């Protein structure tokens, strides 16, 4: 083989190697792209799983609290019933006692002077006049305290409700309109309300309970927008073949993620002590769950919050059949 042939042979081999390298690089790029896309898909699924896990944990937690709340409500309700009954009896006893004291005072003037003095000393020692004066106030305060305890127990029972009483086929948009009418004086001059309400599919529900949910969400939205520029609440309704979706959006202060995690927990409130019971959203959660629906929140601090309620349409027929 002469030098020329040898050079050609090397050139042919070089070009062959070069083509092989290009093919290898192309293969590498294809694989790198595949890995990138798979990695992307994995990351997306991982994020979704994390989100779902967090929802499951939250639902589990709320279900546990619901069971606990139902138990507590029951346990408190029993002693509450006899305490309330006893207080009412005490009220009646007090009337008898008052009449007796008045009568003793009246007849005491007919007693010998020594006995009159003894009686007066006893009245003074036992502070009977003060007791007479203070007892009505004590009764009023006690009844007020008991009423508060009763309200808390009722709220706990609403959160843990399992009964599906008072249900009928209804349009939730009608409920939204009547809730807004009820809140008219609260909202006007404070916040502008934008309605984007499409008439949605009728669902089998407890309209009063759902109205309570709407009321809680709208009041919360109004509070969130206090002090904001152009405070606005937007309410939208739409439906899919299987669901009715209601959204309440405000351009208020928003919530950090740690608050969003807790808002459906009973007694959780960010309002100052005495301003909120922390039960509004917990009850809303209970009511929506009771309707086999979902309630979720999306919020950005400083930008606003959206509550989304999803209620199943299919429940209508199934529940009607069950009821029949």
């Amino acid at each position: 083989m002469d030098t020329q042939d040898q050079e050609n042979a090397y050139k042919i081999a070089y070009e062959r190697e070069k083509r092989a390298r290009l093919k290898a690089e192309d293969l590498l790029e294809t694989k790198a792209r595949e890995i990138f896309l798979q990695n992307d898909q994995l990351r997306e699924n991982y994020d979704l799983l994390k989100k779902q896990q967090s929802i499951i944990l939250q639902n589990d937690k709320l279900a546990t609290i619901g069971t606990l709340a139902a138990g507590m409500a029951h346990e408190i309700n029993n002693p509450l019933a006899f305490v309330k009954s006893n207080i009412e009896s005490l009220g009646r006893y007090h009337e008898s006692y008052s009449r007796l004291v008045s009568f003793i005072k009246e007849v005491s003037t007919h007693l010998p002077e020594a006995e009159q003095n003894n009686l007066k000393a006893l009245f003074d020692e036992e502070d009977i006049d003060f007791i007479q004066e203070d007892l009505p106030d004590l009764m009023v305060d006690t009844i007020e305290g008991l009423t508060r305890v009763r309200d808390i127990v009722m709220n706990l029972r609403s959160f843990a409700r399992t009964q599906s009483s008072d249900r009928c086929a209804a349009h939730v948009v009608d409920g939204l309109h009547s809730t807004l009418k009820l809140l008219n004086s609260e909202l006007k001059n404070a916040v502008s309300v934008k309605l984007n309400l499409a008439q949605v599919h009728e669902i089998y529900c407890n309209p009063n309970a759902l109205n309570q949910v709407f009321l809680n969400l709208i009041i919360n939205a109004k509070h969130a927008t206090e002090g904001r520029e152009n405070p606005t609440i937007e309410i939208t309704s739409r439906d899919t073949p299987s669901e009715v979706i209601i959204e309440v959006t405000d351009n208020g202060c928003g919530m950090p993620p740690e608050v969003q995690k807790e808002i459906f927990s009973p007694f959780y409130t960010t309002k100052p002590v005495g301003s909120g019971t922390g039960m509004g959203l917990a009850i809303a959660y209970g009511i929506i769950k009771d309707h086999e629906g979902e309630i979720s929140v999306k919020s950005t601090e400083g930008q606003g919050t959206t509550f989304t309620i999803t209620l199943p349409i299919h429940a209508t027929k199934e529940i009607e059949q069950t009821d029949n």
Partner: protein
Amino acid sequence: MKGVIFNVLEEMVIEQYNMQTWNEILASQTAEGIYTAGESYPDEELFNLVATISDKTDIPVETLVGAFGERLFEGLAARNPSFIEAEPTLKGFLKSVHSVIHMEVRKLYENPNLPDFEYAEDADDTLLMRYRSPRKLCILAEGLIRGAAHHYDTLITIDHPVCMHKGAEHCDLIVRFL
């Protein structure tokens, strides 16, 4: 700078001159001269190679870089034909450089240090491509555009009224489709 750029430079020198010339150029460098498409190499290595080629061939650096841009388009198009096939017109292709091609490159390589392009269309027959890159390789970009025009068999002119080499913070490449 990605190794594929060096690979296409090597192809150009071998095509225009011969393998011996490329070997001599590499021999005069401190770098080893082994370039793999997906690997990153210091920008200085490419600039040194271009300066050596310019010395050896008596072609001014600017002319050489422009011509390399044209050849680079051909080399990249041969390696990634799908990007060309996806765009039937030169204008469509140029507009896809930033949003599609660079996006795909980012999927493959971490920190590919790609230039930034912004687009504006004042008239049907013109496309303003605003180029920003710390490398200031606007002449290479011009060459790449000419290479693409050649590939799409489209006549164009390129005006370059605003340039980073004249103190501007970006370059305006105004492509007119004839």
